[in-house]
């Protein structure tokens, strides 16, 4: 496990010293995180890293996971898709079951703590248990793209969100008209994790060999869990358009979260779209395949993230941190990470993605410059140390009304 001081060589002493100073101001307070999955997906990944680091900074931070069966997670998957704007119907009975599971969890959990930090919609109704007398502050952290949510689903959730003290979103467009404080906090990546740490060429080559990928030929990669919103079939169409002109290989690799029952179906559709092309490698990675992801990104000539919707798109930050040229859809938090034609390429279609992919494969000098600028941008704005700072500020903000606070 990393120590907070291990980040000093990456971000500088002054950045870490400032975290200690802020943490001192938060310190007497206990922070209790709650989400719906311990492994798989960006939220669990962030909490796995974040909670121990907050503790090292002296905070009393803990993390609980709510329990649910397949029925509950199918409903929450529908809620997730509806928040992304999909036309999904959630029945009255579904909502009742959703609330029942939340209440069962609340009955079993210790909801004490100075700050309750609830992540995403699955445990949102725990707030029903709030009693104003105990002075506990509640924060709802939304990791989902809610630019165009299905109105009735958002309205239902809003009745719960407005019971919180603050809501946190990952991109400017996700802010809602509501009567509580809203905060923008982008997620982050951990530069020292297995997924992002430096790897030797030997380690990278070993992973390529294991998956039967030719290390001598250009490699285009999309790392994402198998989900319609990540558009794996669209990525294959991009590859097929480019392959007519430029020889390359495609890797589509990712896993599935325990709260995502749709994954296998999407994987099958991708395999069918690839139509047996030996240069298309569709790789289902089990949880914990971080070194494999790291190696595949490092081995890539160009990295794609052709999502149709995106919460934030941490895989973009991961690839940029490795100084890779990235072509990604201008959705969710991706435009925060890429300034078009400066630190990567933003696209809106299969045709546009194919056009820029050809350009970057043909112009390695330009591609390299994009990657280097991207790495610098991630270093300054999207590493876990910046994320920790924002969380410390968020916790402090619950106790101060004014715009300028002297601590």
């Amino acid at each position, binding site marked *: 496990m990393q120590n907070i001081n291990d980040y000093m060589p990456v971000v*500088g*002493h*002054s*950045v870490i*010293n*400032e975290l200690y*100073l*802020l943490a001192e*101001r938060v310190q007497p307070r206990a922070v209790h995180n709650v989400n719906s999955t311990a492994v798989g997906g960006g939220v669990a990944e962030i909490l796995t890293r974040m909670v121990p680091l907050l503790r090292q900074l002296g905070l009393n931070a803990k993390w609980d996971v709510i329990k649910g069966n397949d029925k509950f997670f199918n409903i929450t998957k529908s809620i997730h898709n509806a928040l992304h704007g999909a036309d999904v119907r959630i029945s009255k009975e579904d909502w009742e079951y959703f609330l029942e599971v939340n209440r069962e969890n609340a009955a079993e959990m210790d909801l004490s703590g100075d700050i309750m930090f609830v992540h995403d919609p699955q445990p949102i109704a725990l707030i029903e248990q709030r009693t104003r007398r105990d002075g506990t502050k509640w924060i709802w952290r939304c990791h989902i793209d809610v*630019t165009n949510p299905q109105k009735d689903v958002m309205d239902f959730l809003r009745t719960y969100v407005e019971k919180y003290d603050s809501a946190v*979103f990952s991109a*400017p*467009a*996700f*802010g*809602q*008209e*509501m009567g509580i*404080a*809203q*905060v*923008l*906090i982008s997620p982050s990546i951990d530069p020292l994790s297995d997924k992002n740490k430096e790897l030797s060429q030997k380690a990278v080559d070993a992973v390529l060999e294991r998956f039967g990928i030719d290390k001598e030929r250009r490699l285009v990669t999309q790392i994402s869990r198998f989900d319609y919103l990540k558009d794996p079939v669209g990525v294959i169409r991009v590859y097929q358009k480019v392959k007519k002109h430029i020889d390359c290989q495609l890797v589509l690799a990712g896993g599935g979260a325990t709260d995502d029952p749709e994954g296998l179906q999407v994987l099958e559709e991708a395999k069918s779209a690839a139509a047996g092309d030996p240069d298309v490698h569709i790789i289902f990675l089990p949880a914990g395949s971080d070194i494999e992801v790291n190696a595949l990104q490092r081995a890539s000539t160009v990295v794609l993230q052709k999502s149709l919707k995106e919460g934030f798109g941490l895989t973009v930050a991961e690839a940029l941190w490795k100084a890779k040229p990235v072509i990604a859809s201008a959705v969710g938090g991706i435009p925060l990470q890429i300034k078009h034609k*400066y630190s990567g390429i933003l696209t809106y279609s299969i045709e546009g993605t194919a056009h820029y992919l050809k350009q970057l494969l043909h112009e390695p000098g330009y591609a390299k410059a994009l990657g280097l600028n991207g790495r*610098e*941008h991630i270093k*300054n*704005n999207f590493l876990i140390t910046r994320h920790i*700072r*924002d969380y410390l*500020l*968020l916790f*402090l*903000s619950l106790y*101060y009304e*004014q*715009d*300028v*606070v*002297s*601590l």
Partner: protein
Amino acid sequence: MHEPFHFYTESHLVRLLGLKARNTLELLEGMKKVPASSIYYHTHRFLQQHHYLSPEPPNDFAYWLANILNLKQLAEAFASVDTVDFKNMEELRAEFIGILESYPVKNVVDCPEGQEFHFMACKTFILPVQYVAHNLREFADILRRVSVNSLYFHIFESRMRLERDENDFQAWFRSIGENELAQRLSRLDPYTITLESLRGQILEMVMKYAEH
């Protein structure tokens, strides 16, 4: 005996206001009602978030007008407002409102869906760091080591947001009798260079006077 210089640092928490603009009229409307911290955020965040970039987009309003609405001339009018000449956010807000009000209403067009301007604001936390300088030599030594947030606080925040007449470094140089150094620093426009270059330029000036 002169007062030593105490270094501070700052951090911003970004607030979403749930208010957006599709065109210049809505931008004007929003600009009139957002808190001053929103004007501050949209004219200063680029300095910190893109502190390695040069040239930098001068502010969010100009960037949106140029790149989303394709109103290059209006964007240039925003970009060329000399932020360093304004004493506070209300003066700056009035200047922007004046520019937008003089823009012909017949030219108003909506941006593409999903490309709206989202008004944000920030909550700023200021706290002391452990560094104290008693003379120019110590000052230079510390300036090399502090974060860009600390540099940013003493140069931008203290003057513009806390409405002091000069930045903290100038004020201290003057207080220790280094009037010429203070004068030289006052001529520097910090809005047109990156924070690291600014650190380098201030260091160079200070070292020259420290050697006297």
